[in-house]
């Protein structure tokens, strides 16, 4: 059974149609990429899964349960983790606090989870007592990912982790994402950097102006001329 199942989802911001007739699935433990240029609807899709955007039509099911009417906080508590575009760590809190605040679990479990996050991102341990705003962009991205992991997600929504990061840092961050996938967490990754995203994911959907225009396994998509066209023009 699919962990996340979206059927014919349509969403608008006011009058702007952000998503139209989107259907997709993510299975447990799977890594799926959402590709597309800026404004194609990647973030809108993640936002409607998280509950920030209320869809006008269609259905989203998580773990077999419809998410209609479920609050954002409860979606998180049911097992959807989220690291947003622009990272949005809590700037006035230390690294440790940023992580702690995301855990709803008992103290011992929280400590274990934090060890796990520090295991994935050793640099965060050395910065444990630094305030969020004092971190570099790459460290903030790692913290945002770590914070999402602290909520104990079965599905991890990761929006544009390469934004504003240098190529080397992007490589490092995506490497860590691979490690997270290897742990068995399903990941839905929105990314405009095609090559990078395909290197991480098993499958991908290509979005253009709010619609899915192409889908398939990463190997097949890499050679697909429509990708190049969607980004660079014919």
């Amino acid at each position, binding site marked *: 059974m699919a962990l996340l199942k979206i059927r014919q989802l349509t969403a608008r911001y*006011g009058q702007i149609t952000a998503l139209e007739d989107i259907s997709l699935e993510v299975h447990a433990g799977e890594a799926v990429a959402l590709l597309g240029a*800026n404004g194609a609807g990647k973030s809108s899709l993640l936002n409607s899964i998280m509950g920030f955007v209320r869809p006008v039509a269609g259905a989203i099911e998580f773990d077999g349960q419809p998410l209609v009417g479920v609050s954002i906080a409860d979606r998180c508590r049911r097992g959807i983790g989220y690291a947003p575009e622009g990272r949005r760590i809590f700037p006035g809190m230390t690294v440790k606090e940023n992580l702690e605040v995301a855990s709803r679990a008992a103290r011992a479990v929280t400590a274990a989870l934090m060890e796990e996050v520090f295991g994935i991102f050793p640099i965060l341990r050395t910065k444990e007592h630094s305030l969020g705003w004092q971190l570099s962009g790459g460290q903030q991205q790692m913290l945002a990912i770590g914070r999402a992991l602290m909520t104990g997600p079965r599905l991890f929504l990761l929006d544009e982790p390469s934004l504003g990061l240098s190529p080397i840092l992007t490589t490092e961050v995506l490497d860590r994402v691979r490690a997270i996938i290897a742990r068995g967490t399903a990941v839905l990754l929105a990314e405009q950097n095609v*090559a990078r995203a395909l290197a991480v994911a098993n499958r991908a959907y290509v979005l253009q102006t709010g619609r899915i225009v192409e889908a398939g396994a990463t190997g097949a998509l890499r050679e697909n001329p429509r990708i190049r066209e969607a*980004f660079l023009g014919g």
Partner: protein
Amino acid sequence: MMPVLRTGLNAPLLAGVALLVAWPFVFGSSYDLRVFTLAGIFAILVLGYQFIFGHAGALALTQGTFFGLGAYVTGLLGINLGWGFGLTLPLSVLGPLLLALLVAVPVLRLEAHYFALATLGISQVMLLIAISWESLTGGANGLPGVPGVIIFGEALPRGLPLAAFVWALVALAAFASWQITRGLLGRAFTVMRENEIAAVSIGIDIWRLRLVAFLLSAGYAGVAGALYVHTVRVISPDVLEFHVMVAVITMAVVGGRTRVAGAILGAFLLVHLPEWFRFLGQFYLIAYGAILLGMIIAAPYGLIGAAERFRAQWFPEPIPLPPLPAASTRGAETLPSGPLLEVKSLAIAFGGVHALEEVSLSIERGEIFGLIGPNGSGKTTLINCITGIYAPASGGIVFGGRDITRLAPFEIARLGVARTFQNINLVDDMTALDNVAAAYAGRRWAGISPELMRARGLDLARQQAMRLLEQLDVGPLAMQPCGGLAYGLKRRVEIARALALEPRLLLLDEPAAGLNQTEQADLAVRLRKLSERGLTLLVIEHNMPFLMPLATRMACLDYGRMIAAGSPGQIRADSRVIEAYLGAPEVA
């Protein structure tokens, strides 16, 4: 002819006026007349407050102070020197005006909550001065013996004559308010209040406009203060107490913040409510608070606003479209030769992150210059530097031979640099037509010219705006509020507004975002047409399929640096551009 009648607005309005005229004849006891007179005085005070609080949208807490100062000027001059109404009224207006001018410089630029605090501080200082300067003001007890209104040597008796006189002034003040705000100036106020960024982008000098509103508020308050002491005949610090300010805010919120009828209705109701609710006794003031709370929650636009909305929803009236003007008014341009826009080694950083580094480009007249780059690469930052929203850390920007690096955004707009926004900055509550017409307020702005207030100025602007909307094929939607328009149509309204500035350079920030394929193709055709008519375009886009065929020249930004420049063909073949967009293929 009275436009009130012409627009057919208005059985309710006429009924309201009739009620006000009939009121003193029905409730004619001297006490009733006194309350009615006070209602008129507060109506003038609230009419004034609407300029700064309603039209300019700033929470000033000085209106009670201006009122009190006006009262003290008339009161003290009347008691001590025996000066009459003809002399003291102008001075009562002058006092608050001078105070407003004095505090405007430090205070008017402040952000919302600081502005509220600063104005509150000023009002407390005035109150303390009034209480402690006993030799002049009589201290906390105040002074009796303020003379009544004497005009042309005739003392105006209390009762009906005074009430009629005050309400005649209310009519005058209301007419002046209506006259000032019904034209282009009113539209400029709306844009400034609802969307400051949009306002400066069409050349509106926000600071000056806010000053005008503040001074108007002070002047009206001075008149109200003078009339108040003439009515109550004593002067005491009570007029400067904070509860006066609270009453004024409540009246404006209950009646409506921008409508003349709202000020009068709010003042009338809230002055009379204690009389009507006398049975509540000491609970009256609690009810007063509850009414204010209920209104701000249930009817945020006030009674008049709620009535207008109700009417627009249930009894919509078709508004006739304005006629088209005969022809464009555009004059011949004389410009020095050379590139139209030159950006030289521009750099800017936010919190240690270099948003732009050493960016240089030059755009020739008539070009369609395409600027591309991944999300976060600095494209919008560049536009914000060119239009003066951000001040670059180093480097320079020259437009038409003139250095514009340090000019204010509204000045740059007036020089002929127009723009659209990635996230659309239109005023949702205004019609498409008025959104575009407002741009003429910024362009023609040279002090408070009478043209801005005349209905004719607005009519002319609307005609020009109509022509632009027609050009962009959104003419039939001119009377729709922008908030309800589809995204692609909003884009076109924004372009029309930019064109209303008759710009020499048009900056478009991601104009194709959110448009479907057909709309994109349509937009490309329109942009090319504009270019053919001699307009220079700088188009920021993410969407390469849209931009490639359109642009004459292109440049690509990545991490705030210019990584490539040249023809669209060269850009597409550039390996660094491909890497920036598709990513370097990792070793598989």
